[in-house]
Structure formats: structure tokens, C-alpha cells
């Protein structure tokens, strides 16, 4: 009996150390990212005054870009999204919508709204994809091409778009997203003005729920009415404003949102395009590009800027939120597992030694460790196996420090972009940031834990998130 107790005690002590290290590492790195981003984002917003977008817009040397919109059963949002894409202010812009075998009215709505004609077209794939069924064009809108293809999944639709686009850069855009007019110019600025070869440029994704839209444009920014959506606003601010910015500053970008990012087409083709074997094709491509660059001894740069804005609809109910987060976690685990040789690989630099281990340990395994912690720490205390101070440390790191970081993200927003200028909105965001870690975080953790379990079970199922129609 005493040996069992000893074994239990040792196991729980080991687990406690694991939890502590997870919290210390996660919170420590997030604090560093926050401090880095605070300064960098503040400076960046000041620099916007002399950024020179006019010069970029007027220059004949600004590289052409094609926006790729993969769509599968997006009949409610696709017309507005396409309208938003066509309204983007960019000197040489093309738009390709790839209807990935929709079974609803997605294609019909496009044909009807944009007066498209079915036309003959040749398909010359650089990356293999499912076959194309038909090409649709309107000679009055020469920069728009809509193709209908046999269903092959989002990565397949994106690859078909890459095959069809002629420009050196492409921008992938989710079918439920709305772009701000100058978003693409802002996204291309770091590519054009960088001396290094910038192959990826990502922008910020903000939550559309609660905003007013007209003809594919956001006309008034506001906070969403539902509690669940408001927590996601805080979460997105934290994730994009200091998570992505911080990793970019450290040179360890591992995730660029697939909802809105510009890629160098030839590099993506060389790296093999979007892969089908994970459910987060965006992260997989970024890691694949790091892999490819290191293997081929190529110096590439990935950029993240927080001023180009893409508005997206977030899940407004628990079922859809669960699906989204399970998929993200599953995709993260799949990608990290698939590219595990990057972990502490010398040739991968900061990605191999900091970013990849952090994502593996804190974002990947951490979900399971923290979730189990919520069950085992109270149990250990009840059984007298865990000292009471550990509960204080656990609360401190799990709840209070998380709130500190979330409040930091809201402060960063207030110091820089101030998209929610009303005092009431600021107060709401601060309150939600304070309480994000008391309930919402645990809920998300539960979904992420399910994602880890799905990964362990070998699942590859893409869980579709239906949109409530904030963009409709």
C-alpha cells in the first residue's frame, strides 16, 4: 500500500513539475513576446504616417498579386467576400475563386451576381490537383476568374488556384472574410521594401461579428453581442497583436493565418504547394517552407504586420467553436509531428531551437498537460499528495498570469490601432480580458484536449465550421 502511495506521489510530483515548467515556459515566453510587441507595434503605428502607400500604389514595379478564394458550400457569404476582394485597392490585382465541388448554391450565386459566362479554358497544373470542371468569366471583369472543380479539400482548391494564377504573388483569403481596401497594399509593403527575399507576408485577422457591413466593406466596427464572441475578440487580439508580432520579431514565425496571407508563388510551388495530410494547411505550408529553405540552403524571410486587416466571422455557438478549436489543435499536432526533425535541428536556427520546441511543448502537448492539471492538482491536494502551495502557484500561473497577458493585449490595442474607440468598448474588453481565464480558457482547453485525442487516434477529419452570416 505504501509503495503504491509512493508511486502515486512520485508520479504526481513529476506531473506537477511538468505543469510548472509548462506554465513557466509558456507564460515566460508570452511575456517576452508581449514586451517585444508593445514596443514594435507602437513604433510601427507611428511609422504608418510615412509608410508611402501612395508610392507603392503608383509604381509600375509593384508586383501583381492574385487573391485566391477557395470555397466549399459558402453560398451565404461568397458574394460579399468576392465583392470585398474585387474592391481592394491594388495596382495589378487578379481574383480567382475556386469552387471546390460545392453542393449548395455557391457557384450559382457567383454566376448570377457577377454575370459570369462559362468559357473554354486550359488547365496546366504545376501542382497536381483534382480535375477542373468549368471556367467562368465575365469579359467586363477581366481580372476575375471562377473555376469549378471536383471536390478535393481546401488545400487542393488552393493548389488549383496557384496553378491558375499568373502573378508572382498570391494572397489566400477565406471565403467568409472581408478585406479592408488597403489591406493588400499594406501586406505587400514589407515584401517590396525588404532587401531580403520575403516569401510570406501575413496580416491581422479581426472579428467581424458585431461590425456593420455594406457591399463587402466594414462600415462600423463594434463588439459582438454574445459573450462567447467577445472572449474570442480578446483571444484574437492576444494571438495576433503580440503572439504573431513577437514571433516575427524573433524570426521564428511558424504560423501565418491561412485566412489572409501573401505568398511567393514560385517558392510555394518549389516547396510542393499546400499539403493534404494535415487539417491546417496554412501552418503546414509555413513549416514546410522553413524545411525547404533549410534543405536548399535558401535564405527566406517571413513577415507579419499588424496593420493590414482582414475581417472574419468567428463561431457564435459552442458547437462551431468546438469544431474550430479541435481542428486547429489536430492540425497543429499533425504538423508538428510531420516536421518533427526541425526540433532542435541546427540548420533551422531560431525556428528549430525556440519556436518549434515552444509550439510543440506549450501549444501542442501543453493542452493535454494543462487539462489534466485541472483534474489532477485538486485530486492530489485532496489525497494529500500535493502540497497546498502548489494550488496557489497553479492558480497564479493558470488564471492570474493569463489575465495579465490578456489585459496586456487589450492595452496594446488601445496604444496602437484603437479599432474600438468607445470607452464602453474598452471597458468591456478589459473585463473580458480579466475573466477570459476563468471559464473560457478552460473550455477552449477542453476542445484542444479533444483535438490532441483525435490526433492520437489518427483522425484526419476536417470539421466544417458553418457561418452564422455576419458577412451575409
Amino acid at each position, binding site marked *: 500500500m505504501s509503495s503504491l502511495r509512493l508511486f502515486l506521489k512520485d508520479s504526481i510530483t513529476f506531473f506537477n513539475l511538468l505543469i510548472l515548467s509548462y506554465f513557466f515556459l509558456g507564460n515566460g515566453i508570452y511575456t517576452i513576446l508581449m514586451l517585444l510587441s508593445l514596443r514594435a507595434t507602437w*513604433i510601427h503605428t*507611428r*511609422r504608418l*504616417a*510615412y509608410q*508611402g*502607400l*501612395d*508610392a507603392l500604389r503608383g*509604381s*509600375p*514595379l*509593384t508586383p501583381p498579386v492574385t487573391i485566391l478564394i477557395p470555397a466549399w458550400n459558402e453560398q451565404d457569404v461568397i458574394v460579399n467576400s468576392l465583392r470585398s476582394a474585387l474592391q481592394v485597392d491594388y495596382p495589378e490585382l487578379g481574383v480567382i475563386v475556386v469552387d471546390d465541388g460545392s453542393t449548395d448554391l455557391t457557384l450559382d450565386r457567383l454566376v448570377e451576381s457577377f*454575370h459570369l*459566362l*462559362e*468559357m*473554354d*479554358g*486550359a488547365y*496546366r497544373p504545376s501542382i497536381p490537383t483534382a480535375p477542373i470542371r*468549368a471556367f467562368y*468569366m465575365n*469579359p*467586363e471583369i*477581366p481580372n476575375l476568374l471562377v473555376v469549378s472543380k471536383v471536390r478535393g479539400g481546401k488545400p487542393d482548391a488552393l493548389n488549383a488556384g496557384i496553378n491558375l494564377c499568373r502573378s508572382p504573388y498570391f494572397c489566400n483569403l477565406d471565403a467568409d472574410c472581408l478585406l479592408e481596401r488597403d489591406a493588400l497594399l499594406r501586406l505587400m509593403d514589407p515584401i*517590396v*521594401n*525588404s*532587401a531580403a527575399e520575403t516569401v510570406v507576408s501575413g496580416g491581422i485577422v479581426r472579428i467581424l461579428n458585431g461590425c456593420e457591413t455594406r457591399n463587402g466593406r466594414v462600415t462600423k466596427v463594434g463588439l459582438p453581442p454574445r459573450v462567447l464572441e467577445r472572449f474570442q475578440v480578446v483571444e484574437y487580439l492576444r494571438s495576433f497583436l503580440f503572439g504573431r508580432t513577437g514571433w516575427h520579431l524573433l524570426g521564428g514565425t511558424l504560423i501565418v493565418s491561412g485566412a489572409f496571407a501573401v505568398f511567393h508563388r514560385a517558392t510555394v510551388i518549389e516547396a510542393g504547394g499546400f499539403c493534404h495530410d494535415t487539417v491546417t494547411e496554412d501552418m503546414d505550408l509555413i513549416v514546410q517552407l522553413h524545411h525547404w529553405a533549410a534543405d536548399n540552403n535558401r535564405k527566406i524571410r517571413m513577415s507579419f504586420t499588424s496593420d493590414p486587416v482582414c475581417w472574419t466571422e468567428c463561431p457564435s455557438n459552442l458547437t462551431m467553436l468546438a469544431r474550430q478549436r479541435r481542428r486547429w489543435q489536430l492540425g497543429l499536432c499533425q504538423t508538428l509531428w510531420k516536421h518533427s526533425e526541425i526540433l532542435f535541428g541546427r540548420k533551422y536556427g531560431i525556428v528549430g531551437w525556440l519556436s518549434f520546441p515552444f509550439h510543440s511543448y506549450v501549444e501542442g502537448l501543453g493542452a493535454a498537460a494543462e487539462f489534466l492539471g485541472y483534474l489532477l492538482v485538486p485530486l492530489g491536494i485532496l489525497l494529500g499528495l500535493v*502540497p*497546498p*502551495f502548489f494550488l*496557489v*502557484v497553479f*492558480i*497564479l500561473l493558470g488564471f*492570474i*498570469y493569463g*489575465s*495579465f497577458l490578456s*489585459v*496586456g493585449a*487589450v*492595452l496594446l490595442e*488601445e*496604444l496602437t490601432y*484603437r479599432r474600438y474607440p468607445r*470607452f464602453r468598448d*474598452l471597458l468591456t474588453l*478589459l473585463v473580458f480580458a*480579466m475573466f477570459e481565464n476563468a471559464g473560457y480558457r478552460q473550455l477552449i482547453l477542453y476542445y484542444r484536449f479533444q483535438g490532441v485525442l483525435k490526433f492520437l487516434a489518427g483522425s484526419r477529419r476536417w470539421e466544417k465550421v458553418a457561418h452564422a452570416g455576419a458577412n451575409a
Partner: protein
Amino acid sequence: MGSQTEPVTQWALTMLVCVLIGTCLLIAVALFRHRQQNRYSRYLRSLESNYRPILATLLSGRPTAQGINTLRALPLADLELLFDPLFSVGGVGQKHVAVLQALCTELGLIQLWQHRLTAGEEPKARRGSPRGTSLRPPAPSLLHLLLRAKSIRNLGVLRHQPSWPLLVRALDDPHPDIQSVALRSLATIRAPGSFPALVGRLHTVVLGKSASPSPRALKAALACFDLTCSAALLSSLRHPHRRIRFLGTDILRVMVCRDAALESDFLLRSEVCSPGIAEILLTNLCRDRSAEVRGRAAEVIAFLADPRATSVLYKLLFDPLWYVRLRAVRTLAKPRHSTPYLLLGIRDCLRDSHWRVREAAMQTLISLGRRGRQQLYEHFLTSQDQATREQIVEVIERSGLMASLVEGYGEGAGGVEALIVEQFASEAAPLGLSGVLRMSNPDVRQKFLERFLPVAHFKMQLQEETPLEASAGMGLQQVLEFPSVLAA
């Protein structure tokens, strides 16, 4: 156990309190910042409501001594705040620049901005040391950096010619932001005197002697200058370094294409382009080792008045590298190149091994007007290559030419235009034709069908006699179904 854990618990509790205090501090900063920002916005609004009407009157070209004196009474910082929106994206129109420049000079703003540029270069005196004797370069504060960058931007927006030497010096600033803004301002001012300095800078950047600004930014800036400055590019065009030759040629190409877009019969005459440049293009660059250089050179050669240009372009149409052929065939899409000699070359490109060259040749022929289109239609009617024929159909559909072909056919057009429409109808997939007929107005449809149906019936009879052609007749069948579709 209890005595061991007590300090740890205390430590944890202390940390907890610290983090809580930190969180409260962040909240306080956010609220304070919000209040401060709102006060600042109110101040800006009051400044604008009080002085914007005066500024608008002055900018409209009706300067009044009273108005200028009112603005002059404002502190310089407030004046800058008031003027700042005029220098932001889309702030001031082209026609107001001269007035705004005069106003800024009158109010002492230009002197302030120039002073900021020169002051940044002076060493700052250390405390206790005689003024200006310290050799240590100043570490400009962030605020100073932003002010300097904005000053440079403003001088650029005003196209203030006398400031260009200061801006060229700003290119040596250690901060890349200052370099980038200075470069953009130089590109806006376009002072001919600054062009050679920028070319020199381009060379040093490419040769690795300097890291910034980026070659792409330098190229974009140089391309904004007037074509008359291009003589200074000779050193780049003759440079042994491949990348410098490429950048030089590309800058020249952009300058030429920009001017050509403004003038339909634009030609590079010796007044705008030095004979040395024309010579080097026709003798060296069109045969350069780098395909990028040859491709770019082709686009400039297309505008040369020199009689040798035609044969050089013809040769470039058959360059070993597809990329050069693509550039060359695209550049011939100008009416003055629709000579029989070049048309023959372009038509040969319809048989090119690379689909993009074939496609560019088709587009060029379409843009060359009736003579070009005739060549394209004739090739379609005579070619045995199914891939090229399909590609021609695709290009015709995408260019929107199908609608005019259908209309012309209904109006009784003859020749290859009529033949090609009838041929399209008997192709396997006349999707564009079907679509155009479906969307066109009833008159056009009626006229088309009146002329086409007898031909179609004749072809149908032929199909029945020769079953092998049945597959080709599928498209025709679709077209024949139109009367019922239209009636429905």
C-alpha cells in the same frame, strides 16, 4: 514538510500579488491612455475647426495677410498638427502643391523641416564638454526619428526642389526608415541632379557595399524620374555586373513604358534618349548573357526609331529562352509593329513550344487590330494542332471578341470572320459562343441564327453522311438547340 513549503507558499503568494498589481497597472495605463487620446482628439478637432477654414481659404489660392498672420501666431507644433493631414495619404491634390509649398515657406515650416535634417547630423555636445566637440554620434530618440521622417515626407510631398541635396545626404542616415522616406521623397521631387547619386547608390547596394535601401526600392525610385535623366544610366547598362545591367535596363524600360502610355505614337528620339543608350541596346543588351536583360531590352528597343530595331526584335522572337520570346512578342502589341515582316514573326510564335508565348502572340495579334486578327483567324482555320486551336478559342473568349464576332456574323460579315464563327460552332466545346448568344440582345441573336441555321443544317446533313464527324458535331448540336432555348 510544512516548514519547507512555507517559504515557497509565501513566494507564490508574493508573486500572485505582484501579478495582480501588474494587471491593475496595465488596466490603469489603458484607461489613462484612452482618456489622454480622447483629449488629444478633442484638441485636434478644436484646432481644425478654428483654423481649417482659414487654411482652406489660403489653399484655394486667395492668400490674405490676415489669414497668414493668424496661422503665424500659432506655435510651430500646432501648425504641424494642422498641416499633417495634408501630407498624409491622399491629403493634398496635385493642383494645391505649389500653393501649399508657398504657404509652408511663408510660415517657416520648410525651414523647420530642413533644419531637422541638418540638425540630426550634428554631434550632440556631452554635458560638461564644449559644445559640438564630442565625436560620439547622437543616438536619435524615437520621437526625433519620427519627426525627421515626417519632415522628409513633407518635403517630398511639396516637391521642394532645393531640398534634394539634403535628401540625398539623408540616404546615408543609419536608420533604414529615414533612408526609405528620403528615397521616396527624391522620387517625388525628381530633381535631375539627384539621379546620378541614386544610380551610384544602386551600384553600391548591388555590389554589397551598402545594405539599404533595398535594390527594389531604389529601382522604383529611379524609375519615377524623367526619361531625359536616362543618360546617367549608361554606366549601369555597360556595367560588368549582371544584376546592375538588369536593373539599369529595367529602370529604362519602366521610364519608356510610362511615357509611351501617355502618347500613342511615342518613339525614343535622341532628344529624350541619348544615342549611346540606343546603340548599347541594339548592339549589346539584345545579345546579353542574361535573359532578363535581353527580355527587358526588347521592350525598350520596340520604341527605338532606329531602322535596325525591327530586325533585332524579329531575332528576339526566336530567342532560345521562352521568357525572352514572351517579352518580345508582348512588346510588339503596338499598331506600328503590324508590318508584314513582324506579323509573320508573331504568327510563327503561335507555334511556339511554350504555351505562354503562344498565348502572348495571340493577344498581340488581337491588339494589332484587323490585320492581326486576320492572321490569328487564318492560323486557327489552317492549323492542325488541336492544342493551339483550343488556346485560340480560349483567348478569343477571354478577350471578349466573341461578342463582336457574333454580331458581325449576324450583320453579314464575310471572309475569315464568318468562317471562324462557323468553325467555332462545329468545335466540340463552343462554350463562349453559347454564352454570348445566351446573353446577347434578341436582335443580335435573331440575325445570327437567321444566317447560321441554313449552314448548320447543311453541316448536320454532312454529319449524318459521315459518322466520324459526329463528335465534332456535338457543339453544333448545342447551338442548334438555341431556338428552343430562346423560345422558352
